[in-house]
Each structure stands twice: as structure tokens, then as C-alpha cells.
């Protein structure tokens, strides 16, 4: 199988590998995929509660080279974005950036799922915060 240069680059030099404290309220964790399907991604984000900017991101992936590259790229892209901006990232953007062939599109879908799951987890933890911010906004 021929891999694109960008996939090979991410595979050889994966960005932002690691883990963050799952318990921290600033951290959102997304664990998607399943071992029996051949890919599992864990993507974590660390969000500044005041600005809602993703200040750091980490990942670990069990999967093929394209799955590793998709999640590595996802961590690069979410960093510096607000959570709302990060939700705009589409799997098709990842496909385009990495020149993924049709059989590898599911890797990009999984990466998008991982971003959404991580943000979802962060939001769940910060329901109270969100709520108080929303009411504060309404009061103004």
C-alpha cells in the first residue's frame, strides 16, 4: 500500500503523544473505536475555562498508519482553537490534508469522533461552569 508523505511523516514523528489527567476538570477525554475493529483512539484536550481555548492536546492510537496520522493531525489542529472552532473540523478536511484513500476514510471519521467525544467530555464536566456563564451572560 502506498502511503502519502504526510501520513508517513505523522507515523514516523507523531505529534502530541501522551496522556493528561483524566480527572482534571480542564481536561476532556475522548476514547473511540474498539479493539476488535482494529482501531482505538484516545484524544485529550486541555481547555482554558475562561477563554474556552484548547491549550493542549494529547493522543494515543491503536490502529493502522492512517489512523495514527489522523489522530496526530487532529491534535495539531485543535490546539489554539476554541472548543466551538474545534467542532468545525470535519473528517473530510483530514482526508484532504492526508490524501487518504477511500479504504482509509473511516480513520478520519474516527478522528472527528474523537475530537467530538473529547469536547463532549469536557462540556459534561463543565456543565455547572457553562450554566453559570450562560446565566451571567443573560444577566448582562
Amino acid at each position, binding site marked *: *500500500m502506498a*502511503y502519502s*508523505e504526510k501520513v*508517513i511523516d505523522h*507515523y*514516523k514523528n*507523531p505529534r502530541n*503523544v501522551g*496522556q493528561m489527567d483524566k480527572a482534571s476538570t480542564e481536561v476532556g477525554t475522548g*476514547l*473511540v*473505536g*474498539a*479493539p*476488535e*475493529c*482494529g*482501531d*482505538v*483512539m*484516545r484524544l485529550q484536550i486541555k481547555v482554558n475555562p475562561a477563554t474556552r481555548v484548547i491549550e493542549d492536546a494529547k493522543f*494515543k*492510537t*491503536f*490502529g*493502522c*498508519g492512517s*489512523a*495514527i496520522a489522523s489522530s496526530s493531525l487532529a491534535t495539531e489542529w485543535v490546539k489554539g482553537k476554541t472548543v466551538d472552532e474545534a467542532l468545525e473540523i470535519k473528517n473530510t478536511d483530514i482526508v484532504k490534508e492526508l490524501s487518504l484513500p477511500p*479504504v482509509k476514510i*473511516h480513520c478520519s*471519521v*474516527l478522528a472527528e*469522533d474523537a475530537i467530538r467525544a473529547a469536547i463532549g467530555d469536557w462540556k459534561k464536566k463543565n456543565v455547572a461552569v457553562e450554566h453559570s456563564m450562560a446565566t451571567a451572560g443573560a444577566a448582562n
Partner: protein
Amino acid sequence: MSTTQNQPSTAQGEFDVSVSLPPGIKLPLYMDNHATTPMDPRVLEAMLPYFTDKFGNAASRNHSFGWEAEQAVDTAREQIARLIGATAKEIIFTSGATESNNLAIKGIAEMYRERGNHIITQVTEHKAVLDTCKRVEKQGCRVTYLPVKADGLIDIEDLKRAIDDKTILVTIMFANNEIGVLQPIAEIGKLCHERGVLFHTDAVQAVGKVPVDVNAMNIDVLSLTAHKLYGPKGVGALYVRRRNPRVQIAPQIDGGGHERGMRSGTLNVPGIVGLGKACEIAREEMHEEAKRLTALRDRLKEKLESNLDFVHINGSMEHHLPGNLNMSFVHVEGESLLMGINDVAVSSGSACTSATLEPSYVLKALGLGDDVAHSSIRFGLGRFNTQAEVDYVADKVIDVVRKLRELSPLYEMAKEGIDLTKVQWQAH
């Protein structure tokens, strides 16, 4: 070997790891000898005259060109027969093992229809047998697919129970192409003989690697091919027993009545000469080669097992081909591992490497979880592999597995003692 051949690979897609290239290693390195084997130069040498000067048609009865070709074919028949304990007249030439398996199963199903319509096979057969069985099922045969045990072997008691008064054929492979396990062929043959049922074996991976004796093992029909034993592609043979019992096979290709009427078509003389020569070499060198390959295979296994945790050997190591090692590197996905060792040619049971996106049905038949199947690598050592190559491959695999495990959330969780089977996964 010149030093220029020992430059580190500049191929893309591998980790920048510091495994230095030892002397004697030339990349890319071939260690996938169950897929096919490189041709032995002695085989090529024997074949060459039959492409040019000795081009005759073995069926030409009226001139020396034909006689010369026929003589060469007869010699090859002898060489093949001797390797498996058969007689020359029992060898039918085909285009390869897929055709041999088709001819055996379809030809017997058709010829013995009045006696019965039941065929017994097992689940880890090659597709050339399984798909042929599916075809004859559509034509009115009943096929029993025996399960295998966790070690990849059938239970002979299952076979005993499966045989009934309509059973005409048992077809069980000699050696498995993925996990290298050797089925209890002599026991199966004995049982079939006692019960008056024909026994066919797809012996593609076994012939020339381990001793095969059609009489001692009560084999009635046997498929083999040249390219798995250092011969050319596109030529194979079917052994068809002539006595006790005399096996009859309905031809599947009609034409000039070649090969005792069982397989028409002008003989591929150069290919047949190559197959014959490959069998002769195998007969002379098999014993020594098996010892050498077993030692190399064990060396590879030891190195991998002693340097990595969470490894799993697939298939019985007791009943095993000399050059085969099928290992799962749990928590690492097979395709990503192949990508990291891309200057080494091996195979994976991972779904990502297959056309169907399904993990290996052979590994699944052993009862392994899909995740273990996804992590499997098949190493196929052959005649031209060296100890230096084994060491290089072992070091490289160890390095890449370690790197990928640093990336693997499953490995991290397993190390923390989390039971991965209890995690609520989001299958997709």
C-alpha cells in the same frame, strides 16, 4: 557480498530507529515464503533449454522434438512421484494448486455422485478448497466444515462422527498457510481408508518441507504446486491414486485427452521440468533444510518472546512447519507494524491488510479475538534466509513494536491492569 549492498534503506515509511544494517543484509528482505518462494537457480537452469532449443510439444508423437519434451515430462513425473512416495503414472499436471484443488473436489463430486454427495472439510482450509466446496454445495453436495481446536488442529473424533453413508470425500489440508500447523494426516488417512471414503489433501505448504508419503498416510488425492517449493509459478500437480483404491476423477477441462483424460491441454514443459527439478532438490535437501529452518524459526521466536511482553503464538508449535512463525503482538495493529518494518516482506492477519477488511478467518477459527487477529504477523522463513536476516528482522520488529506500544492506548491500559474486555467500546 559487496559493501554497497549494505547501505541503510532510504525507503520511506519506517521509523528512524537506530538498527544498524549488519553485513550480509540486503533490503528489501524477503521473509514471506508461504506466499511464494524465490526460484532456486538450479531449477531455472534445468528449465531454460525447454524455452528455446527443446521447445517440442510433449504430445507430438512423430518426431524427436516431441519425444524430447515427453522424455523431460516423464523425468519430472518420476521426480515428483518419488518425493511423495507415489508412482509416475499417478501424477497429473495442472496450472497450480487452485486448479488441482478444483479438479480433485469437483471431479470426485461429479464422478461419485451415485455413491453419495457428502464432503467433509474444515474451516481453516485455503479459499481454493473452501470456495470450491461452496460451488459443489450449489450443485447438490452437502458439505460439513469441521471446526478446529485452539491449536488449529481438527479433532479426529469430530471427523469420525461426521462421516456417514453418503460421505464420498474428506478434504483436509496438510499444512496451514497462515499458522503452519500440520493436521494429523496419517490418522485422517487411516480413518478414511477404514471407512471407505476418499481422502484428498491440499499439501501445497507441506510438500518438500516435511516428509509426505501417500501410501503410509493413506492419501488418495493430493494437490501440490511448484512455486511454494522454489519452482516456477503457473505449474502444479495432482496426485491421483491408481490402486487400493483406484480413484476416478471427472475432467473439468475438456480437450485432447491429455493426462489420462483428466486434464486436457498442452503440457507446460518448461514449468513441469522446473517442478520436477524442485522436487528432486527438495527430496535431497529437505532433511537438512528443515533442521536449519526450525533452528532459525526458534531463534526468531525466542528473541521476540524474550524482548516483548503481550506476545501470543498462533497455532500448535508441536505440529508445525519448520519455517513458519505466526505471532500476535497484542495492542499493536498489524498494518502499522508492517509499515514500520516496510523493508521486510512478511504478512499480517490484520483486516487492514486484506481486501475484505475482515481479519484472518484462520485466526478467528482458533477462537482468537479480532483484536489478537489484527495484531498478527506471519513470518515465513525459507531456503534463502540466513541467521543474520533473522537477527535483523527480530531487532527491527522489537523496536517498532515498542515504539507503537508507546502510542497504543490499549497497551497503556493493559499495563495499568485494566481488563480490556470489560471496557465499554464504541464499535464503529
